[in-house]
């Protein structure tokens, strides 16, 4: 099987689903004629036409509201936020309309919101944010955050086929850096299932997105001293794989949560609460977290580096956790 980039995997997932199901269509800013700010949908308009690859005005609330309305009328829209940062301009449509409609009157809202997310790209405060925690707190939304090409493709398929609003966090840093094999047209990755990317019994790292590879890197360094650390890639954030986390922590007795999002109010806090509630007696050390600083994302590279989690920061936390 040939190697594809993470970006190509997203593209494959989208195009295969559009071929399979005529109710799938794309909408967003600059996605059609231009092919998208990151060129994810390059060539799509020629292939699927202007109606199914719809260039929209610069209006996130309209894009998300229109997507929800079309979803209620039998379509499966995939809306692109040019940067996940801009999703705030359409926040209300997601958290109050899309998320609550099925609960309120039983009509499904099958829509996907593509959110090019995250930093390590010198994007500054408004092109680098991790926005998942705002939506993690909203019942009625599903959240996925793939870290590999295979997951990017398989989760795109799952997101499009799901009957609920799904926020698909695609990491900008990984677009052209992550490469790997991908599955075929029917390899759908179930939402809610994690992937254990490294086995070990000394400690568990739970992470997702761009910090998966950083966590593996840190685990490899620590392994040279004889401690094998397990690394769980959540892949899905809502729902997240409680069973896999608990099973692993019950074996390792130590938990490090790593995420790129800022520390306070991040998803790591909820994971820590679940583990302390349901596996407290298995823990040999306090649960640790490595996350970004509780500040806006700074622009200049040295500050950005100081702000984000890195393999050395994860390694340091891991060593403290193992020594406890």
């Amino acid at each position, binding site marked *: 099987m040939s190697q594809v980039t993470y970006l190509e995997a997203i593209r494959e997932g989208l195009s295969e689903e559009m071929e399979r199901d005529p109710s799938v*269509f794309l909408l967003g800013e600059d996605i059609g004629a231009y092919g998208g700010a990151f060129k994810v949908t390059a060539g799509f308009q020629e292939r699927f036409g202007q*109606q199914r690859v*719809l260039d*929209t*005005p610069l*209006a996130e*609330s*309209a894009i*998300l*509201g*229109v*997507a*929800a*309305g*079309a*979803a*209620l*009328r*039998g*379509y499966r*829209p995939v809306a692109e936020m040019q940067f996940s940062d801009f999703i705030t301009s359409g926040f*209300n*449509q997601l958290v*109050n*309309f899309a998320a*609550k*409609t*099925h*609960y*309120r*009157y*039983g*009509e*499904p*809202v*099958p829509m996907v919101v593509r959110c090019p997310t995250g930093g390590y790209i010198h994007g500054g405060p408004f092109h680098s944010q991790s926005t998942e925690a705002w939506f993690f707190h909203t*019942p*009625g939304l*599903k959240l996925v955050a793939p870290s590999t090409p295979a997951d990017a493709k398989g989760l795109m398929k799952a997101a499009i086929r799901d*009957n*609920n609003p799904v926020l698909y966090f695609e990491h900008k840093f990984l677009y052209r850096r992550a490469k790997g094999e991908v599955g075929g047209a029917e390899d759908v990755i179930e939402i809610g299932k994690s992937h254990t990317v490294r086995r070990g019994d000394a400690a568990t790292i739970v992470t997702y997105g761009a910090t998966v590879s950083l966590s593996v890197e840190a685990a490899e360094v620590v392994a040279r001293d004889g401690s094998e650390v397990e690394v769980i890639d959540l892949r899905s954030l809502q729902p997240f794989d409680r069973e896999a986390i608990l099973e692993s922590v019950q074996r390792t007795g130590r938990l490090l949560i790593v995420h790129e999002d800022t520390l306070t109010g991040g998803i790591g806090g909820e994971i820590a609460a679940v583990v302390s509630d349901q596996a407290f007696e298995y823990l040999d050390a306090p649960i640790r977290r490595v996350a970004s600083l509780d500040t806006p994302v700074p622009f200049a590279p040295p500050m950005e580096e100081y702000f984000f989690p890195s393999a050395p920061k994860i390694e340091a936390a891991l060593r403290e956790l193992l020594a406890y």
Partner: protein
Amino acid sequence: MTDIHRPEELIQIPHGLGPEDLKKLHYFLKLTQGFEDRLISLYKQGKIVGGVYTSRGNEAVAVGTAFALEARDVLCPMHRDLGAALVKGDPLRELMCQFLARGNSPTRGKDSNLHHGNRERNTLGMISHLGTMIPVTVGAALAEKMSGSGAVALTYIGDGGSSIGDFHEGLNFAAVQRLPFILVIENNQYAFSTPNHMQFVCERLADRALGYGIPGVQVDGTDVLAVYQATKKAVERGRRGEGPTLIETITMRLRGHSEADNFSYVPKELIEAWQAKEPVSRFENALLQRGVLKEADVQAIEERIAAELEDAAQFALDSPMADPEEAARGVFAP
């Protein structure tokens, strides 16, 4: 102010509407009024869960617009559009259960008021955030355009709601895509307690259509036939693929924002002046003067409506609330 008793200012009957249509319009106006009378009395008896927001003064807008639609058209009523929901086919029992938060209501007691939609009736369920339903209904219009159904989609916004961002985003989106979309502004002079001069300074909200390159018309919102006619024209334009229309209806909210609001901030003279144009009696008087209806017909209709509402209210009062555990169900679609 129009004097409804002066024959030259009598409501003009649009071409294409026969006596049966006029009687239907009259029935739905009276039904709206009667339903809300019943809601107010249930509210006073403490039987209503939450607030009651009536459409007093807005009945002709709700009924007239919905009457211009076909079954295939998508409608998203807002909180003063009970009449539109009735025209579109929401059964009285269902609506009454919704206001009384019963387990068999369209939202199984999870939401109130007109916050429900129905795929078969082609209705969308509003949320409380005003303006949100504009982009959503535009999305429905996009879907109808893509499927080639020939259907249009219509929703409403108030004078106050016209200030929110989704008004602009939704209307502009619909205009750019030339969607079969109709936005009806119900300009009833007050947004809760805020008068229009604190909401906007333009002379006519309909003029905002210019900014989107679409037609904007202003009609007398107390004249159900004028509302019907303006909507019909917008519907035809939408079906021809020529794009959206903005309709501003001018009326007056004749009660408080909700039943908890005594609307003391509205000058008494203003209410009295508008009472002369009260939409339901205005239309009824016109039909009586034209001989479409006789006094005996009106009485018969009132009796029929009273019986229908009695049945609906009793049905709702006899219906149980949902199990508390229902609260935990249905967050996600299977």
